[in-house]
């Protein structure tokens, strides 16, 4: 799962260096943010001169230097987690229980724990720099009269800040899961890194201030009710008595201290700012366009050329960057387009174009298949088909399918139209990625699964057995497509088994395949399942947890659509450019299949948008680091698809009447040529 275990050249040579550079820059930015923090936290309105001189003195103090070194370590840790956790295809939980499973996943627990610790460290640095009453955990006691009084008491202010650090660290980690903060989206325009960074800095500042405000609100409420527990614990374990003459902080009078809240807020904003900057820089660096050579003169570099890279199945970031590069070259650079259209030197075959177009078409037809399968699986009222409809076909399924694969491929019936099946996608997206989080195959179909247990965690599990899964999915695409078993959540055995599989880090083929049982047993089980389902459906909590989130299925289907958008743009621009630039006519031979592919995708997309919730727009999140671009990818795809078809029709015009495509597509194309779509 660790990226260091991957031996892909791209990760080794590009991604890792980019991550390192981003971390280096965030470390270099630390002194600036620290200075800002020191000035804000020591702010005093009535003594400006003292304030400034004090701040300058503090900035050169040894404690500050030590804090800075500690903060560098923190940034390194955060940067490491960014590199480990990032994904270009978000995983979208389709029900609340799936989200819960995601939050409680061991990996996520480690993530949260580390963030708590690191948050405490940052807050310790912040409290040291803030000085004054926050300086240290122990403070001299005030009741000096009694002789037996201990010298040092617990400083609750310091503890308050430390716990706030842990809380903000946890909420950062938690919100990261909920808002898919590890998702890295690509910008709609290309900009230089410096300018992009400069443009987003004000936004990041605002974001951290606002998020810190929310965190402070929640933390203060939490501390008011439960603050005495950690205080007593620390006081006991460190043998620091609580100073009873000072107001304790979990009271109204203690918490309504304006300067305390201000310091808390500023410190929280400082903490979030350093982390957000790390995230921002990482995103900017990792999504920077990379230029792949179209063809290479040396055989050993052939691995790194665009046609080869496009067919990459495991390193999704490389595939995405390659598709982006394809879209850019098709729009902006005629000499590179020439290379695409060129013929191989001995033999005269258009290998480059063939490889590129084949890969793009495979991507698109894969999406078409997914959409058609989804549409067939969902009845018109938005619910999944009853299990009985599929149970009879279960006998065909491979008997040793592991639960992970079942969850991924269920509801993938044979596509009704043969035209769609023409392309057997050697698609990347059906195979698992090397990175655990982003196996897009499972994502799209979980929505109708109704099996929340299987969503995120199993995806992690599934990813660990890449080769096997690859085989599985290969077999899935064969004409005897496995119909899946009954609904998992609604019924007893499977879901129980899946649930238990959650905790185990090894992917165990948990559910004994139902085919091995006799038909009588199957019938009996079926009845029991119906009963359990009926019983469970009446419980409000269960319904709440297991109900599908609206829109989630659509979002999950289109989670990786950025790749399709680039494929569409790249193809259509190349085809349009071929009208005048393609000397040998290499594009003409594939034009019918390109048009056919786009038109069937268009049909599938149109049908998908007729489903309930498919065309409802997501609510805009105002100020958070989580990137919600994936929520609107389906709209972007629909627009890009139409534009691409129009680009081809407007370039070729009447010539398209001579292209051999099916009558249905011809009719559709005519609509486009008359600008009626």
């Amino acid at each position, binding site marked *: 799962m660790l990226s260091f275990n991957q031996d892909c050249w791209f990760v080794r040579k590009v991604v890792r260096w980019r991550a390192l550079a981003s971390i280096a820059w965030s470390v270099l930015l630390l002194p600036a943010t620290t200075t800002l923090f020191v000035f804000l936290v020591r702010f005093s309105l009535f003594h400006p001169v003292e304030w400034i001189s004090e701040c300058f003195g503090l900035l050169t103090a040894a404690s500050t230097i030590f804090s800075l070194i500690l903060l560098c370590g923190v940034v390194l840790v955060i940067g490491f987690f960014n590199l480990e956790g990032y994904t270009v295809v978000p995983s979208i939980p389709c029900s609340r229980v799936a989200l819960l499973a995601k939050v409680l996943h061991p990996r996520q627990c480690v993530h949260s724990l580390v963030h708590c610790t690191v948050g405490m460290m940052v807050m310790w640095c912040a409290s040291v720099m803030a000085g004054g009453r926050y300086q240290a955990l122990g403070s001299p006691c005030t009741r000096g009269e009694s002789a037996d009084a201990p010298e040092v008491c617990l400083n609750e202010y310091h503890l308050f800040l430390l716990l706030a650090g842990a809380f903000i660290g946890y909420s950062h980690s938690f919100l990261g899961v909920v808002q898919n903060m590890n998702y890295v989206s690509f910008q*709609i325009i290309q*900009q230089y890194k410096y*300018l992009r960074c400069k443009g987003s800095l004000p936004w990041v500042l605002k974001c951290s201030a606002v998020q810190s405000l929310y965190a402070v609100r929640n933390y203060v409420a939490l501390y008011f009710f439960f603050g005495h527990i950690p205080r007593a614990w620390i006081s006991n374990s460190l043998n620091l008595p609580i100073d009873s003459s000072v107001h304790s902080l979990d009271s109204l009078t203690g918490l309504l201290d304006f300067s305390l809240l201000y310091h808390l807020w500023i410190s929280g904003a400082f903490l979030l700012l350093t982390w957000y900057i790390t995230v921002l820089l990482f995103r900017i660096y990792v999504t920077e366009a990379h230029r792949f050579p179209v063809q290479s003169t040396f055989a050993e570099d052939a691995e790194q050329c665009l046609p080869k890279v496009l067919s990459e199945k495991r390193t999704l970031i490389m595939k995405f960057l390659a598709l982006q590069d394809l879209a850019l070259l098709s729009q902006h650079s005629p000499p590179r387009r020439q290379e695409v259209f060129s013929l191989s030197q001995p033999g005269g075959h258009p290998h480059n174009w063939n490889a590129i177009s084949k890969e793009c078409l495979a991507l698109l037809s894969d999406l078409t298949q997914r959409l058609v399968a989804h549409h067939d699986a969902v009845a018109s009222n938005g619910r999944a088909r009853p299990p009985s409809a599929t149970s009879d076909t279960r006998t065909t399924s491979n008997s040793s399918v592991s639960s992970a694969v079942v969850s991924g491929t269920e509801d993938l019936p044979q596509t009704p139209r043969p035209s769609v099946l023409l392309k057997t996608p050697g698609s990347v997206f059906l195979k698992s990625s090397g990175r655990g989080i982003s196996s897009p195959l499972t994502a799209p179909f979980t929505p109708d699964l109704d099996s929340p247990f299987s969503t995120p965690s199993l995806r992690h599990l599934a990813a660990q057995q890449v080769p096997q899964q690859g085989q599985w999915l290969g077999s899935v695409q064969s004409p005897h497509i496995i119909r899946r078993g009954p609904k998992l959540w609604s019924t007893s055995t499977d879901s129980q088994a899946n649930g238990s599989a959650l905790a185990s880090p090894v992917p165990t083929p948990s559910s004994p395949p139902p085919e091995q049982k006799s038909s009588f047993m199957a019938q009996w089980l079926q009845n029991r399942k119906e009963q359990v389902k009926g019983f469970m459906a009446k419980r409000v909590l269960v319904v709440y947890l297991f109900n599908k989130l609206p829109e989630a299925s659509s979002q999950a289907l289109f989670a990786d659509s950025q790749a399709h958008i680039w494929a569409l*743009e790249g193809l259509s621009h190349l085809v349009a450019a071929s009208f005048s630039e393609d000397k040998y006519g290499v594009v003409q031979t594939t034009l019918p299949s390109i048009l056919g592919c786009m038109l069937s995708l268009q049909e599938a997309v149109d049908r998908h948008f007729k489903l309930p919730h498919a065309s409802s727009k997501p609510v*805009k999140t105002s100020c958070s680091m989580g990137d919600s*671009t994936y929520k*609107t990818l389906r709209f*972007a795809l629909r627009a890009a698809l139409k534009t691409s078809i129009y680009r081809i029709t407007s370039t070729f015009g009447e010539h398209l009447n001579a292209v051999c495509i099916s009558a249905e597509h011809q009719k559709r194309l005519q609509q486009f040529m008359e600008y009626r779509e």
Partner: protein
Amino acid sequence: MCSLALFPPPLSGGQITLYEANNELVAGSSPDCYEKQHWDPPSLNFPRETLKPHSRPESSSKAAFLDHKDTLWMRSAGAWYMLAYICSFKELFNHCESFSFNCFFLTFRSDSAIRSFAWHPHTDKFAVALLDDSIKIYNSRSATAPTLKHRLQRNVSAMQWKPLCASALAVACHTCLLVWHVDPSSLSTRPSSGCAQVLSHPGHSPVTSVAWSPSGSLLVSASPVDTAMMVWDVAAENCVPLQRVGGGGVTNVSWSPDGSRLLAATPSALFRVWETRMWTCERWPCLKGRCQSACWSPDGSRLLFSVQGEMVIYALTFSDMTGGPKSAAVVADLSETTFSGIDDITVGGEVQSLAWDPTGERLAVLLKGSSSHPAIIAVFKTRSSPVFELLPCGFVSGEIGAEPRLIQFHPHFQHGALLTVCWSNGRISHVPFYFVSVGRPHTGGSPPLPHITSKIEDYSTTHTLYTEQIS
């Protein structure tokens, strides 16, 4: 360099320019006095009186233009844009006596009921934004003319149809940017406001200019009070602000037809030309005033612009080889010229807007009028090889008392160029220029032979014959 003195004298005595054929502008006494050959875009008339007054609570005509709920700066910006002549200081200075100011303003712009006009880039369809904040869409293929109304659609200042799309229309409104999706096959005359996407960004209003990228994927919007211009991915509704220091806002954006560059004019004496690959920009400070209007040549290599306070047209030539131009060259002199005839006619002045036809052979220049002479459209022939030059073609004049307000060329007129003019009396007329284009790619793929022969026909009688031969 071309000057107005080389032009044939403008028409007088109520004559109306009808069309250009065989290198001459033909005039007539009424717009209907010649035969229409192919699809003729409807000549529409929107008299000011027929429009309903504003339905907003403060229904005085002053409030129609300046919403008093806005801040002073917003109002000044709005006033600044709509005036187009008067810099925003005036609104600030005249704040106390803004009533008189607004009266002046009303007499200036409100004489025309048409706020904006946009041809569809691919089909015979256009949209007209009217003074009552509604937009009407006319289509050659259907009799229904849908009317678009939206709660947020106020003070429409610009519209543009999305290229490579049949239905999307971006509308720059007072508070936001609306993108209408008007289904071309729908028979509804009042599309619901659910068909409109609302794009807004804090601080980015009033939106005064929109420009779609020619590839149809991006939309750029600009506001004179926001120093950042927004690049929108409309479908996904997310935007990237592009900010540069200086200029104090962006008043006008215009994308070069090949999509490689974008002009962004600011309210101060500065404009920027962005290249759209890495989105860097070069600054072009003007000496005199702000960039008043600009247009790109069809191949995107040349930018013509005019500067406030100067009666000339400048040209900038971009090429990828030489690394861009160093300075702008003056290509036309539009200073006031008096033609002596039966009665002396004076033409000339500052440029209000420029329009270049898609074949790159005609350039229409809308010259501002003054108290002594009305606004007028001068049409140039353009030639780009061996050297770029403008040649005189003629003046386009309308009915008596009507001044041109907006000009736009039809994007794909088959027989030359078609100039659409919105007049101050609410009339929209279309002036065809029949000529044989040199550079136009012929969609049929056959060489344009039959066209050449028609050139030698007799001038006076051949109008019908000429176009028959073309079709």
